[in-house]
Structures are given as structure tokens and as C-alpha cells.
């Protein structure tokens, strides 16, 4: 690289570091500064205008692009993930100010265990640290009354991470204004498989109870109705009630950053009718304008859906 190119990349890195520093200060220490207050007032006006139309109940985020971000700005790989976390807290703040009740984030997939062990260990440690930070009094969770829920096969996690997750869920159980679902050690096919297994077990248990009451021999069934012709077969709601994500309704919008256009095994069942939004921006660079654009698209779509319903 020439001296000029090094200077430019260095100044980019400085600029990026400055943006991250501002976001961190905005999140924590500088809430009472004039710029922060002005920004907050401007956002409230903007959200007030957006709220004249329907606001999505549930937005899901696939936080893609941390590693590419760190390569782009010549940072360490770990710094990319940390920047990603800062972007996450900023987006959560915006969503809660907009009164989006349910937010889901894809933090760590079961497939991600295939990455290099150093990266996996780093991510586990980062997640443990950040989950413990959620329980602090001045955390965003307590500020906005958010109940935290961890969705996934938590048995696959390191014990320290799993314990931190259980502690965070217990500590925020009384919060009721919003729900944050963090998908960790999660894939949708694993979630569906788990729900199918539990549905089969439950169905088997119910029929064993019927059999033990004599229902199999033409006597009254468990509820006393006397009709034993239709043995209960599994339906959609039986599977849904065993999903990890049963705490939230289906997402209205699924946002995946970095321009990739695929689900990567995230909320396949729940996003059957969701709008998919794939901005090309990398996750640590996501900003207010992307959220506003996603909500405006949702409102435009809702307008056509309501119009179609009236025609029928």
C-alpha cells in the first residue's frame, strides 16, 4: 500500500472508532448531553410520524457482516463482533422507542460451532460478558422493561454462558413492556425437530391415558364425550406450542444485513409470511434509516393487504 492509501485507511479506522465511541457514549454516559437530547427529540418526532401508520409487532434481525466489517476497516476480528454488539444495542433502543414489542436476533447458530475454535471461544466469552451486562440495573433491558428470552438448544452452550442466560431470563421475568428473543445455539430445523419430538410424545401420552380409561374399547373417552372414532392427530397448533419461539408472534419483518439473500436456517416456520428485507449494509453499520425504510415498506405492504381484504 502507498503512504496515501495507508493514511486513508488509518483515517477511516479513526472515523469508525469515533462513530463507535459516540454510539457507546450515547448508550451509556452521555444521555444528558445536548446533542444526545436533540437527537432523541428528532427521533421522537420521526417515530411520531411513523406511528401514524401501523407499527410492526415483531422484527427479527440476522446480524450478518461483522467479520467483513473488521476486514474492511483493518480491525481485529473480535473488534468486528464488538462493533456488532454496539450496533445491536443502538437498534434495540430505536425499536423500543418506536414501541416494537417483540424483537428477535440471531446471535449464534448451531452451524457456527463449525467455525474455528478460537472464534467460537471468543464469541462464547463475548456473549457471556454481554448477557451478564443485561442484568445490570442501567442496562437497556431494565430501562425499557424488556423480558429476555433465549431460544435454542442451550445444552450445547458452555456452562458459563448457559448459566448467564438462565440468570438473565430469571432477572427479567417480571418485565412486561417488550420481549427480546436471543437465538443462541439455534437453528430452525433443530427447533422444528424438537417441537415434532415433543408433539409425538405428548400425543402418545394422551392416547395412553385414553387407553387406560378404557377409551380404546369403545367406552367413553377421557373427556366423557363417548366418541372415540377420531383419534387425535397432530395439527399445526400442536407443533407451534412446543417451539422455542412460542413466546412471540410471527415476525412481520426479517432483516438480514450485508446483502445476503437467504434465511440460513432462521425462523423458517415463523417467517412463512414475513417481509424479507436485505439491505447491503454490514451489520455494525446499520442505522436509523434502515429501520425507517423497513417500517415504511411494512406499512406500504399492510396498505395493500388491507385493500385486498376489503375487495374480498
Amino acid at each position, binding site marked *: 500500500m502507498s503512504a496515501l492509501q495507508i493514511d486513508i485507511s488509518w483515517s477511516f479506522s479513526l472515523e469508525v472508532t469515533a462513530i463507535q465511541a459516540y454510539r457507546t457514549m450515547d448508550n451509556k454516559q452521555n444521555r444528558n448531553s445536548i446533542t444526545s437530547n436533540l437527537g432523541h427529540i428528532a427521533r421522537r418526532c420521526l417515530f411520531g410520524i411513523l406511528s401514524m401508520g401501523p407499527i410492526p409487532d415483531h422484527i427479527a434481525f440476522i446480524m450478518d457482516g461483522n467479520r467483513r466489517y473488521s476486514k474492511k476497516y483493518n480491525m481485529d476480528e473480535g473488534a468486528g463482533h464488538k462493533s456488532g454488539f454496539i450496533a445491536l444495542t443502538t437498534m434495540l433502543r430505536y425499536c423500543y422507542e418506536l414501541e416494537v414489542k417483540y424483537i428477535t436476533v440471531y446471535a449464534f447458530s448451531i452451524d457456527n460451532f463449525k467455525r474455528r475454535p478460537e472464534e467460537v471461544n471468543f464469541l462464547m466469552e463475548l456473549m457471556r460478558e454481554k448477557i451478564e451486562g443485561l442484568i445490570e440495573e442501567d442496562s437497556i433491558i431494565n430501562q425499557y422493561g424488556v423480558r429476555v428470552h433465549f431460544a435454542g438448544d442451550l445444552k450445547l452452550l458452555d456452562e458459563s454462558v448457559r448459566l448467564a442466560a438462565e440468570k438473565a431470563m430469571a432477572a427479567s421475568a417480571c418485565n412486561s413492556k417488550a420481549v427480546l428473543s436471543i437465538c443462541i445455539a439455534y437453528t430452525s430445523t433443530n427447533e422444528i425437530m424438537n417441537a415434532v419430538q415433543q408433539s409425538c410424545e405428548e400425543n402418545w401420552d394422551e392416547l395412553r391415558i385414553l387407553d387406560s380409561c378404557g377409551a380404546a374399547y369403545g367406552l367413553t373417552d377421557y373427556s366423557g364425550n363417548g366418541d372415540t372414532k377420531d383419534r387425535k392427530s397432530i395439527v399445526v397448533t400442536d407443533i407451534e406450542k412446543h417451539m422455542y419461539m412460542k413466546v412471540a408472534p410471527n415476525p412481520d419483518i426479517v432483516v438480514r444485513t450485508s446483502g445476503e439473500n437467504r*434465511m440460513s436456517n432462521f425462523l423458517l*416456520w415463523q417467517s412463512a*409470511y414475513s417481509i424479507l428485507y436485505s439491505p447491503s449494509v454490514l451489520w455494525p453499520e446499520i442505522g436509523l434509516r434502515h429501520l425507517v425504510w423497513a417500517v415504511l415498506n411494512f406499512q406500504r405492504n399492510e396498505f395493500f393487504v388491507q385493500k385486498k381484504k376489503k375487495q*374480498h
Partner: protein
Amino acid sequence: MMKISTTLLSRAAALSLNRSTKLSSYFPNHHIHNQHLLPNNLVGPISCFWAHHSTTSANADGNLDKSPLPANLRQELMPRHVAIIMDGNGRWAAKRGHGPEVGHDAGVIAFIEVMGLCARWGIPVATFFVFSSENWRRTKAEVDFIMWRFQKMLEDELQNFIRQGIRIFTIGDTSLLPISLQEVLEHTKEATKHNTKTQVIFAVSYSGKNDIVQACQTFSKKVRNGVMEPNEVTENVIEKELETKVTSIPSPDLLIRTSGELRISNFLLWQLAYSEFYFCQTFWPDFGESQFIEALQCFQKRGRRFGKRI
């Protein structure tokens, strides 16, 4: 039904007879390829039909040879399974001041063309979302028309399927379809069962959630009968029980949805876990060879990681 068929027959007659530029205004965006092989004044869906047949050659057993790929597509990066949501017929027709039937009619032309392209380019599996379980909520007239038009297409194109080496499968709850259509589908599947070039799957009255539920019901019976334990129901076992078990490549590499809608709409939910999505603004009746090439080119540029990195 008689009224619809009479109207359409008269329209089809008008289309076949009318070879003036008025026809090109009826289908202004329909792309015609290999026009140098055709009379200059022949445009519209009929010419597309002839274009498709005149550019292919039959070998000794009557099967069409695979055509070479367009120059900007690489054989080794071609998807093995393409899934297509054929959306936009109604809006295409509304834009031209016609009812949805005209859009569905034009959509069938595009449907036949794209199936032919899959066979020509040797794409092993192609799944088409013909009719979703939610589409039953449409007006009776529109549903009846779609069923009739689909049946007509199957009857008219059977010999072409056989010539092109296309084997037809169906997924979805076909018991809800009209009896005549069910019979024609069974006949088409039987008549094409020896074809080996391309497997074309029609998703008719299909719901991705119901697909998973029917697999679950199968396991539930086996668990009740003591044939399997609940913990033996793994992801692989579920995948092998989904309706896409008819093919050896159940998961699409590429999903194409036309008309600018950015959603999956309950289509192949499990199977699309790692598929690349391609959304285009084109309405389905306007989707032709050039749009398909563009979708495939876009697919070939993508880096697929299958979850190694999120």
C-alpha cells in the same frame, strides 16, 4: 365454465390469427428469443411457443438434446434444484385493464417456457408453486379458471414433456382438486415416469407448514405403534418424510419469486433453509429466458457458506 372456455377459445383464436403489431401491444413485455428463425411479423405467445420448439433438436428416441448454456453461465455453478413462485399474473392483467384470467393464461405460457429451459439446460429438479393452500380463498370463478387452465396445459403439453425428458411429480393436498384434474395429473405422472432428464414438481394446494405436519403425523403413528421412539425423530429423518422425498434433491439451491413480493408465502419452509433467494420486479407472464439467465447469473456470483459463517 362453458362461458369461460368459449371466451378463452375466442381469445386464443384471435391471438393466433392476429399477427399484426396490435398483438405486440397486448403482450408488450413478452420477450421473444431466436426471432431470426421466425417470420418477422409473428409476435406474442404463439411465436414463443414456436421459438421453443424450433431451436431444439430431437435425437433418435425423440428426447430433446441438452442445449449448451448461454455464454455467461458456467455449467459447474448451475443450481441443481430451482424453486419458483410464479407471482404477478393478476397484477400483470390488471395493469392492462384485463381480469385475472388473462394474466393466468399468459402465465401458463411463461410456465411452459421456463420448464422447457430447465430441461434444455439440464437443471435436474425444478419446483413450481402452482397453487398454494391459501389460494383457495380467492373467488370461485378465479379458482375454477386456474384449475381448468392448468388441466388444459397438462393435456396439451404431455407429448412435449415426454419429448423433453421431463418427469412430473406433485406435492400438496391434491385430494382438494377437481376430480378431472386429479385424474389428468395421475395420468401425466404415469406417462412421464420413465423420463430422466429433469424432474418437475408441481406444488398444488401446497403449504410448507402442512408438509411438516403430515411428516409429524407419520412419526406420531409410528411412535404409537412402537415402531420408533420420539428421540429417533431427527432432522434427517424429518427431511426424508417431507413431500419432497419424491426427489433425491429436496432442497432448492435457488428460489425465484417474481412480481417484487419479498416473502416465501408458506412455500417449502424447511427445504429453503439454505437456499439463495432471488426476487425480481418482473411479473410472472413477462418472465422469460433473459430474466431466467439473469437470475442464474446472480446465483452464480453468490458465495454460499451453508452456515459455516452466519
